[in-house]
């Protein structure tokens, strides 16, 4: 057991932290906020992405044959943690999990074609899994991809395709064999979103965050849009989810939100912070935050050892999403009538409306990406070996 960073990791952490502190300007925060519900990236965020890619900070964890340095996944963990601790919303979006999938399952041509754009952040992928009748029960999806010569022709509808309107591609699960059992006839495709036949319709949420419906109407893509073997999509998609998980849960951002709550109380509401009962609530939140940290690092440590977490990623997902809700809710309660003020209330809104925002977005983290109920079943069945019904 070892709970310290290596010297190399610590040096890297300091580098990233230095970089993050330079990038995390008020101008950047304003730009992000201006992106708003649409989540569009502005020039400052784009430049930060390019600079991270220029330094090779993300790809350093990939195998050398794909231009990486085969560093421990801890470097990727540190990169995200330090950026998010500073408030820089760095993310490759879904591409961050699709890159490894292409490395594992793609052809050489596909690697050459897609990986550089993913690493630089110029290629952004939306996740095309859910459909109106395939939510938790993903394997029921009906979107069809049919071979036509060398091409594939895609028809169907995806739902909750978040970020589709600011993405270049969709990582699409489509049924290629309707005769096979539910899980067996699915394949994965990378489909450009700017081609003919693709229609993106916004779906607005009360969380102040936009998602989309995406319609595919005779969308034609080349044979190289298929990633991995035909009909093996279920396995590839599951594998892609595993890869994403070294930074799952967003602990660093949650810790930042907690610190911002403390700082807000210290600066603006010292009379509340002096109340012992308020301090108890804050202490309870801190303990819970520590459990998220513990689960996050346990999970990352398993991945860093080259093993697959059987249940720990799910534990992080459940614990972090519930903490997010508890933190948002408790912050609003603690702050009294100031608590529910949204950012539109200007300087009267605590921490620029962060807690209102946290609260409104917290349901999505609980049912999205595999509802917490599914995660608990994964923990029980895959982790603890309990039988299926």
């Amino acid at each position: 057991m070892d709970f310290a960073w290596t010297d190399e990791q610590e040096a890297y952490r300091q580098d990233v932290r230095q970089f993050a502190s330079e990038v995390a300007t008020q101008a950047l925060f304003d730009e992000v906020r201006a992106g708003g519900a649409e989540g569009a990236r502005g020039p400052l965020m784009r430049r930060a992405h390019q600079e991270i890619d220029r330094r090779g900070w993300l790809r350093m964890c990939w195998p050398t044959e794909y231009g990486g340095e085969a560093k421990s996944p801890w470097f990727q963990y540190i990169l995200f943690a330090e950026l998010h601790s500073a408030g820089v919303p760095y993310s490759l979006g879904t591409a961050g999990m699709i890159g490894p999938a292409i490395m594992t399952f793609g052809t050489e041509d596909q690697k050459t074609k897609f990986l550089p754009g993913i690493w630089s952040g110029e290629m952004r992928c939306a996740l095309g899994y859910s459909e109106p009748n395939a939510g938790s029960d993903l394997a029921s999806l009906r979107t069809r991809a049919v071979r036509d010569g060398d091409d594939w022709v895609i028809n169907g509808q995806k739902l909750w395709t978040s970020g589709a309107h600011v993405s270049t591609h969709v990582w699409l699960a489509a049924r290629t064999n309707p005769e096979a059992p539910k899980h067996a006839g699915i394949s994965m495709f990378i489909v450009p979103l700017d081609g003919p036949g693709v229609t993106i319709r916004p779906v607005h949420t009360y969380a102040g965050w936009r998602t989309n419906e995406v319609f595919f109407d005779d969308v034609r893509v080349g044979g190289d849009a298929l990633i991995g073997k035909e009909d093996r999509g279920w396995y590839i998609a599951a594998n892609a989810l595993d890869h994403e998980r070294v930074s799952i849960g967003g602990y660093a951002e949650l810790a930042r939100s907690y610190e911002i709550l403390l700082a807000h109380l210290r600066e603006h509401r010292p009379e509340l912070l002096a109340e012992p009962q308020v301090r108890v609530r804050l202490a309870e939140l801190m303990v819970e935050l520590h459990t998220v940290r513990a689960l996050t690092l346990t999970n990352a440590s398993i991945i860093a050892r080259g093993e697959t977490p059987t249940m720990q990623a799910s534990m992080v997902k459940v614990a972090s999403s519930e903490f997010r809700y508890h933190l948002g809710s408790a912050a609003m309660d603690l702050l009294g009538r100031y608590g529910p003020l949204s950012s539109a209330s200007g300087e009267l809104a605590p921490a620029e409306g962060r807690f209102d925002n946290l609260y409104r977005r917290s349901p999505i983290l609980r049912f999205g990406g595999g509802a917490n109920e599914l995660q608990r079943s994964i923990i029980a069945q895959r982790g603890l070996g309990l039988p299926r019904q």
Partner: protein
Amino acid sequence: MDTALSETQELIRASIRDYLRREITFDRIRELESNGGYDEALWLHLGRSGFLALPFASPIGGGAGLVELGILVEELTRRASVAPLIETLTCAMCVERFGDPGLAGEIIPQVVSGGMRISPALLERDDRYDHAMLPFDGGAISGTKCFVDYAPSATHYLVSALDGGELVLALAEANPDNATLRMLDNISRLPQANVTFSRTPVRRVAGAEALHWLVGVNRVLSAVQRLGAAQQALEMTVDYVKAREQFGQPIGAFQAVQHHCANMATMVEACRFLTYECLWQMDEGAMDDRLVATAKNWAARTVTEVTMLAHELHGGIGVTEEYDLHFFTRRGKDRAVAWGSADETLRYLADTVGQQNSWH
């Protein structure tokens, strides 16, 4: 002891429920939320049907009590109505109970007819109920009152102020010349503003006892709003999980879903008893601040937890603007904080732990 509604109470509930289901669509609520006003048609109906007269003494009033008002509030909440009903009626009841009979005689007919809408303006920047710093110099007030609900459509404000060392409630007209609004935007999307008075003429209504009553009755009625939002979220969820199929069956057949629903229903059931018990107790002329704080604390926890579980069970559809669940999530959380949050009420209960109780 009987937790069932009486026949009259059932009639009140059926009457307002029928009207709301028939006349008010959620799309209409969306419109009302975006224009920052209130529902004038509903208000007119409430006046015409005698609901605005409900809690006042006859002959002009309906002679009913707070329990009946609670039933009305619950139904309005369940349809996400946009109307300053609690605000107006509790202020006017305060005048009736504690004010000069002449003033009451002047005001209540206007309230009953729908022509007067009063918002309590009690909070200041330090966000404390039962407390005021704004000075009252006899005939006029100057200063800012915060978080005034339905301020834009109010015709009057009932303002707490400090008259020498004594807390008073005073009635001000909502005159844009001497009462200016700084609009606030909160999670509920209901109209709210900070109101700055400058030498605004006011009439003294009553003293600290009236303020204490006004805060107490608003505490409980806002708890009823929490209850209503939670009840509605529960029922929407039960309906949804019966209909939505995944893995070849309604998701409501899954044990995890059933147990979430059972927990939601249990919280709501306890919440219902505790809130109506407080209303009933006030109708009997008593008010136990600790029982009120208990009901309020539980109602805050209930609406927060129930709406969140409702989202968890709805999945994506539940957070979309076009689905109606968010009205109850947003309004519920605003009400969970208003008039005493879970935290604030717990602090009060902690401070008074061990005092004598008045419940069965």
